[in-house]
């Protein structure tokens, strides 16, 4: 079953004096339940590709189908709703809300789903348990390590039962051991829960954990 069908996608950043072609005619399929890595050097278009998959950017050319539906030209509101309901994000710099505890950071994004209180609490605790951070539930991000913060970020995406989790360099801000532990966590969630992961990295040790690796070079799929 295919989750994403990307065909002929191009994207160009328009700066004041010159433009930068970030993606050129990219074709890509992402299967449900897959742990897919997008690899490539800096400036190869990894982040742009993830932004397009996450409906944060709209391709200048080409089409993106998500679970069978064309999504590349949706309105702002439609894209917001789709992201809210079906797409989870994990960021390199964690991007947690500093004034909320780990529990509240995870809970915050569940609130929009109008999940009843008891069930929401159960799901938040389960998500924190699943990423091994339940003991830090009442801590705020600034009192947690980088690995713990990233686990909270994963729990934040996990709690919503998103169809896919898009992770842009999720281990880049972590030391090697912590990065591998986070990767192991993603892999375990992929195996045990069937969560689809698409992540970008240029770390070969992290790439080894992926089911499949897409290589991007100068905005084109090169392998």
């Amino acid at each position, binding site marked *: 079953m295919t989750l994403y069908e990307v065909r002929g996608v191009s994207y160009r950043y328009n700066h004041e004096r010159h433009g930068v072609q970030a993606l050129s005619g990219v074709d890509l399929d992402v299967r449900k339940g897959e742990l897919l890595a997008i690899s490539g050097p800096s400036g190869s278009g990894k982040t742009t590709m993830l932004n397009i998959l996450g409906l*944060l950017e709209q391709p200048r050319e080409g089409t993106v189908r998500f679970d069978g539906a064309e999504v590349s030209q949706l309105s702002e509101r439609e894209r*917001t709703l789709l992201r*809210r309901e079906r797409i*989870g994000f994990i*960021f390199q710099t964690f*991007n947690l809300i500093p004034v*909320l505890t780990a529990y509240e950071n995870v809970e915050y994004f569940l609130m929009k789903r109008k999940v009843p209180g008891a069930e929401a609490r159960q799901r938040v605790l389960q998500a924190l348990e699943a990423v091994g951070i339940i003991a830090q539930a009442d801590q705020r991000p600034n009192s947690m390590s980088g690995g713990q913060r990233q686990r909270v970020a994963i729990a934040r995406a996990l709690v919503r039962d998103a169809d896919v989790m898009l992770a842009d360099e999720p281990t880049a801000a972590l030391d090697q051991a912590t990065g591998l532990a986070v990767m192991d966590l993603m892999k375990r969630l992929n195996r045990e829960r069937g969560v689809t992961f698409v992540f970008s990295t240029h770390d070969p040790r992290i790439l080894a954990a992926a089911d499949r690796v897409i290589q991007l070079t100068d905005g084109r799929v090169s392998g």
Partner: protein
Amino acid sequence: MKRAVVLVRLSLRNVFRNTRRSVYALTAVAMGAMGLFVFMGFNRGLMNQYRANTIRARWGHGQVYVQGYRGKAHARPWEMWIGRPEHVMARLRALPGVVDLFPRLGLSAMLVSGEQSVVGQGEGVDGIAEAGFFDQLNYVEGGDFKDRPDGIVLGQGVAQGLGVHVGDDVQVVTRDRKAAVRSAKVVVTGVFQTGSQEFDSRAFRVPIVIAQRLLPTDRVESIAIALSGVDGWPDFARAVKAALPDLEAVPFDELDRVYYRHAVDWLDAQFSFIRGIILLVVFLGIFNVITMTVMERTAEIGTLRACGDSRREIALGHVLEAAALGLLGGAIGLIAGWALTAGPLQGGVAMPPAPGITRSFRIFVELDVRDALQVLSLCTVTAAAGCLLPVWRATRIPIAEALRHA
């Protein structure tokens, strides 16, 4: 509901996310709120003193006349004076809020003392009744004539013009309706100063009995009204219209339109302008802080939007945060304003004589719950308004670009 609670909680916690900046913002709002609160209290004190002075020096809370008499010239004005005044006063006394009534009869007369004479505009008043209520007449010499049925009190300018003092004789000379000259010899019991130079240079008061004898008439021109409170005037006026339709009830601010009403309007306009400046300072303080705050949180806004928060929800969160800042800063400012009033300003503020006024005032700052609520509302709304533009701008940044600010 739960979502709203989380949003409010997040906004409140964000208020103290950057302590130093929040302290700066709170200080800006608190200073503005304090200034506004004390300023409004000062304004209220000034207005109340001015109003009390106007009511208790001359007009009462208002006066009643025969319908159509006031404001027009009449060939035979005495025909439009209030007849059977005792009967009318008995009916007026039964109306809501009435505490006391003071019949009056105006007369123009020449006041003569020795070789000096001054043309004055006087009133015949019930000296005994008026002595209790009209306590703002501000006698600079002597006092009222409640104990002297042949007494007269003079405006300071009149007394100076005649060169008389308390105890001196003055001849009141006037013409009756048949142009016959009539006069009465009276004794100066007091010299007053209302603060209005123009009034003080021509005004005098004699017992109404003397005025009626001079004109001569058994009628009164008007009846001044003392109510239990100034707020009771509308009810009283309605009651007069219903019970005594031949009479017209005119409030003091209408009677003293030129001085009181215009002065109040003028001061109100000035206060509104100053209030606007204070609010602008609050607005700019909040705008500056929120702009910096929002710039710092650009990546967070990108994250929230990436995870499904709409622009409106994000803007609402920031508006709540700014409103909380405004509310808290406003509350601190109110406390500071109260402390300032209860402390250094407890003895009032010495003011020089106002334009057209010959005596100085001491204004007491009168804080009021309504002012406090207004200050809180203004601070909250101003702070919320101050965040709108920076938040609007921030939520317009493309998400991917916002995330790059991390």
